[in-house]
């Protein structure tokens, strides 16, 4: 059991850090521009596929260096020539634009790479066992993923709190109009943040691609969970996004490895529900089976009980 807890904690923190790589960009974009970027997970997917394609020709390290700026540029172009034009039609139009974009990116990925998973492998230089806990071998690649995401987290924190650009971004988070009035080129800051956010998502894609499955539905699987993260953490709150990422990462990993159902719980009290009833499914569902639902349950609960999120300050 101790082994399970240790491994699950490591995996949970890893998944949480990956989520945070994406959620940080998403929440920055949302709080500055008021746009909920539906296509954010699609940029993560683009990162993974670009990484796959580049690593076939130039190796994994080149992919890690090249794919994020490439995806970031695409993101910036989308902001400049797409989103900015849609902006005058209002927020609903912006949301719909990113929704359509997510749809189109998924289709384009299918058009180019097909629907089946591509063979994106862990690089040979990282394909060994880092350490062994009890009897489980922990792969070095996962440790590498963890280190990369922590490094990016620290850099991000540094940029946001110690540099001039970071201060402007922070200011624009809460008072975008005031920042514009002080003479900063807010549209350009927007484009920059949008591009960087997409690049961060792409980093997550490049490093997560070999560990998870690189397939055209990976954006659709992860996208909604990202929304859960930023809503639960509180929209516009970076620290909230961090806590919520870790929380959801841990909850998800622990739930998957846990067993047990309501029937077991009732059996412990000596009650056996009628197996033929309509609700028998409900009794026999294990925790591992409901793992995919847990984030959405959290989302609905948070929005019903504390709409501002765990750390949020604004009420939308």
């Amino acid at each position, binding site marked *: 059991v101790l082994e399970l807890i240790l491994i699950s904690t490591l995996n949970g923190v890893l998944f949480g850090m990956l989520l945070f790589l994406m959620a940080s960009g998403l929440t920055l974009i949302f709080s500055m521009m008021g746009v909920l970027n539906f296509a954010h997970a699609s940029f993560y997917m683009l990162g993974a596929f670009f990484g796959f394609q580049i690593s076939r020709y130039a190796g994994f390290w080149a992919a890690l260096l090249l794919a994020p700026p490439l995806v970031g540029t695409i993101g910036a172009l989308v902001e400049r020539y797409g989103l900015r034009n849609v902006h005058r039609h209002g927020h609903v139009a912006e949301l*719909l634009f990113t*929704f359509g974009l997510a749809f189109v990116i998924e289709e384009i990925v299918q*058009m180019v790479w097909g629907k089946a998973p591509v063979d994106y492998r862990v690089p040979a230089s990282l394909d060994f066992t880092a350490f062994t806990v009890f009897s489980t071998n922990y792969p070095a690649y996962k440790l590498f993923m963890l280190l990369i995401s922590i490094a990016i987290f620290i850099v991000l924190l540094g940029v946001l709190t110690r540099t001039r650009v970071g201060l402007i971004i922070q200011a624009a988070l809460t008072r975008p109009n005031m920042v514009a009035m002080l003479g900063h080129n807010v549209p350009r800051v927007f484009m920059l943040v949008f591009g960087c956010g997409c690049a961060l998502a792409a980093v997550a894609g490049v490093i997560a691609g070999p560990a998870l499955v690189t397939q055209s539905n990976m954006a659709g699987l992860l996208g909604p969970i990202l*929304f859960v993260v930023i809503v639960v953490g509180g929209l516009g709150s970076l620290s909230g996004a961090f806590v919520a990422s870790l929380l959801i990462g841990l909850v998800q990993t622990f739930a998957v490895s846990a067993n047990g159902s309501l029937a077991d719980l009732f059996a412990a009290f000596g009650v056996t529900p009628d197996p033929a009833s309509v609700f028998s499914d409900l009794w026999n569902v294990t925790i591992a089976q409901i793992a*995919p639902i847990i984030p959405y349950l959290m989302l609905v609960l948070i*929005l019903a009980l504390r709409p501002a999120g765990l750390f949020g300050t604004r009420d939308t």
Partner: protein
Amino acid sequence: MSQTAETAVIKASAGMRLPFLRRYGIWLAAVLLMIGLPFFARSGSALTMLSLMGIMIIFALSYNMLLGQAGMLSFGHAVYYGLGAFFVVHAMNAIIRAKYPVPLPALPLVGGVAGLGFAVIFGSVSTRRGGTAFAMISLGLAELVASSSLILRSFFGGEEGITTNRTRLYRLFDWNFGSQLQVYYLIAGWCIVCMVAMYAITRTPFGRMCNAVRENPERVEFIGYSPTMVRFIAFCLSGFFAGIAGGLAAINFEIVNASYVGLQQSGTVLLAAYIGGISHFVGPVLGAILVTYLQVMLSDVTEIWQLYFGLMFIAVVMFAPGGLAGLLMMHASLLRARTLHRLAGPYALLSGAAAIVAIGLILLIELTYRLMAKAADGSAMRMFGVSFDAASPVPWIVMTVLIAGGALLVRLIWPVVTQAWSDATAAVRAGGPP
């Protein structure tokens, strides 16, 4: 003096003094069209498509009660459609088993009530706020229901879904609904009833309050209405009609599976309503017809039809936020002032140039698809009746020339179109043709 003029305008715009034919003519035409269509489209596939269009019209209109009327962007409308469908299927099976004398045409009502019930439950959590918060909760709820549908197997039937047999219900007037034609008339009947009902709702004071909540919830609150309550009622009504649409779909296909409540279905109805135009009542109807047609026809022609679908949606969001109906309505005043014909020439030029760009883009997409995803099947392909090799440079050169040349033409023609447009509208303002 000015007051009487104002009331006259209000009365005229509310249609109070319009003669019968002008007021109800369009509805009569719609009814006649729906009755008459099967006489022109006799083949089975055409009837199936018409049935699908009828279902989609109800579904898209119910969606527009949220997005268009009350300004609530929902990403999970298929939840009510799908649950309505499931309840109808289970009700049908239960009725067949117990041999109750319930005729098939009444069953969509079961779906409506189911949709309404779940809309009451989910609406009480989600309608407290509008805007982005509502959109996200709707997405969360949709994911919740979609994931649950895979877990609760005895109700949702797992992968293979739940099947039923519509011909085994109690028969009224000896209709057994075995043929697609009878099912079409059932769907058409419900479609007309729902359209009239939903149109009537937009004309009630409640419908107007929905519009007010969409425009400015804060002011609505100031004058003493609760925006939450208005949103909630709109949400429930919309869930009711979505449930009816789902019930009709269950009757039409005789099988319901988890994809009915899925995000894909929610996305389709959003696309249909928005492409049609959300700011006019008729918009979602046009959108539903077009989207269903494209879904059926495009999927025969190309395997990546959804990409074209998505590109079309983005084009509408970017360039024509009013949708099809918005574009048509822009020209209504010109038609009335009889200056529309002046635009015909420039429009023909523009659509010619746009068609060249479109053909170039289609070529680009199909070439890429053939070379990348379909690499295993070889590079030979056939489009527009011409066979060629996707790996040779010729089609790529043709594609580049088409796109670049077409784009250049569009740029050249655009000023002509805007000039003609402003001339035509200026003539309208001046009071008809000179």
